[in-house]
């Protein structure tokens, strides 16, 4: 118990520093690049003085570090600011409609936008993890138990092929074959959970090779450890040895992998896949925000995804030390 408290305080403190550093990096990057968000909010027809006033009002003319300090202060109170272009009623108010439609208090709070899109993304990611684990775990274990034989080769070639399929292309092929030609599954937008299946399949194809490789390597190297033969000499059956000991010991690298690589991979691929399928999740929100230079949304999503990765890492390390007490973090 003491260990757990010590572990979490130490790691959470480190994690918080990392998240703040990332926030500063993204914040600075967004402000040093060319392109004035005020122009996007108000449209090109507004006079320079009005644009300048609005910018001052929104605090966009202060030094970056002052803006950042203010921003972090707000974030700590749970306020991620308001979108530059989206109104609270949905739809975007940016563009050429002039100053009359622009109202600083009518813009959607970023936290609300994220809260409405996040469940969709979680559904998609969860489904992708389920599919990929259902395929990759049996295949990986089978390949690991038969290292060097044909199941191993099969897993090797299969994962080499899957890892080579670019997700944008695969998504379009799925849309064309499964949705447009065969009509088995819907593809574009979101109406019910079946709309998440095709994008989840694309994500799963990206995850499967990573999981298969790690599981098979881990299982096959554990089989070579002395404890396996010792257990069998002492009268445990091979089946029991594998189920109770080899698989348990192989799960540590798998946990590490699922935490660091897989969550990172899914986070990255989510943006592309949601954009591709026009799936109303957090990734589509992010990509649209990039096109509209909606800085508060970009910052908030970058901070959220980075914090998610950090937290997952901490949990994974904690789980690993609980499984194997020899590990030190």
């Amino acid at each position, binding site marked *: 118990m003491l260990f757990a408290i010590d572990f979490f305080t130490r790691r959470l403190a480190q994690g918080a520093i990392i998240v703040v550093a990332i926030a500063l990096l993204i914040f600075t*990057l967004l402000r040093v690049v060319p392109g004035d968000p005020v122009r996007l909010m108000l449209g090109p027809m507004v006079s320079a003085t009005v644009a300048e006033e609005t910018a001052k009002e929104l605090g966009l003319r202060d030094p970056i570090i002052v803006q950042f300090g203010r921003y972090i202060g707000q974030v700590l109170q749970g306020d991620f600011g308001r979108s530059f272009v989206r109104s609270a009623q949905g739809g975007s108010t940016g563009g050429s409609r002039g100053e009359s439609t622009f109202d600083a208090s009518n813009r959607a709070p970023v936290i609300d936008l994220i809260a409405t899109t996040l469940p969709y993304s979680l559904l998609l990611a969860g489904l992708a993890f389920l599919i990929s684990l259902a395929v990759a775990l049996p295949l990986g274990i089978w390949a690991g138990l038969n290292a060097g034989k044909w199941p191993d080769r099969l897993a090797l*070639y299969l994962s*080499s092929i899957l890892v080579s399929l670019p997700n944008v292309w695969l998504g379009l092929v799925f849309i064309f074959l499964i949705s447009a030609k065969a009509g088995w599954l819907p593809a574009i937008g979101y109406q019910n959970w079946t709309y998440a299946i095709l994008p989840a399949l694309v994500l799963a194809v990206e995850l499967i090779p990573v999981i298969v490789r790690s599981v098979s390597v881990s299982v096959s190297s554990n089989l070579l450890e002395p404890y396996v033969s010792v257990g069998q000499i002492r009268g445990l059956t091979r089946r029991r040895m594998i189920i109770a000991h080899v698989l348990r010991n192989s799960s540590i690298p798998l946990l590490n992998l699922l935490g660091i690589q897989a969550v990172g991979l899914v986070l990255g691929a989510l*943006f592309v896949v949601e954009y591709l399928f026009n799936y109303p999740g957090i990734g589509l929100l992010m*990509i649209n925000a990039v096109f509209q230079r909606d800085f508060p949304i970009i910052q908030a999503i970058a901070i959220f995804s980075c914090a998610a990765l950090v937290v997952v890492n901490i949990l994974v390390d904690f789980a690993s030390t609980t499984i194997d007490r020899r590990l030190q973090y």
Partner: protein
Amino acid sequence: MSQQAIVQPAPGKPAKHRSLGANIFLQAAGAGEFRIGAVIFVGVILLSIIAPTLLGLSATKFNVGLKFSPPFPVEGWVWPHFFGTDQLGRDLLVRSLIGLRNALMIGIASVIGMFVIGSAIGMVAGYVGGWTNLILMRITDAQMSIPVIILAITILGVTRPTPLTVILVFILAGWPGYARIARSATMSERRKEYVRAAKILGATDLRVLLVHIAPNILPPVAFVAVLDVARMMIFEAILGFIGIGIQPPTPTFGTIIADGTKYLLNAWWITTIPGLLLAVSLCSINLMGGALERSRNKILQGVS
């Protein structure tokens, strides 16, 4: 296990004759999947060098009379447009081959960049240790917690993307991985006898790092970097698809695929066939890279 039998040095023959890099490469070259990958890869490269001139086609020339011509086995295809033509009558075979060249160039350049920068920083961190090590490694920690795509779309979405900025973004996103590997390898080499001997003989730190440590730790890392070339090529296609990669009229896989989405139902080949070429090329690279990675693991675990 026949794979191992072929490549392991026969007993009696001095095993240390070749360098570590050569050993890894030769062992990998014996593997079946490496050969398959190499044959496909060389074939695709030759095709991309020869085919555009041989067929006398241009990647950007319009021919509206020939638009939406289907690919080879489909009825109605026109010689010599094996991959068909797109909405402007441009030949898709030549476009995708040029796109492949661009993707390969970007992939290789960015991986070389992240390898050089990452290894240099990692080696310094591992060799000097102390505060330098701590600070550099915390920086890599921080950077590894941003997904590449977020970094890329944040930077490229708000600046004007050129091949150089795309490469720079990939390098920025990719160096921490290499820094970590190089650091841990350097830390374990630092205490070995040959390093101490070199120091006693009066070698400077820079000389020890470049002449003695680098040749021992970098080849294994470099071989695994082959897999990253394929990853970067996929990222390049993704960026092009979103519209923040290299801009038209330069053909890249991303822009070709994005162009084709509008015509997916009528002219399915615009998107699918060039993508298939990309997938095949990536697969060949991945097969080679995977074989190199496995032989590296085998040799490193076997020798040391």
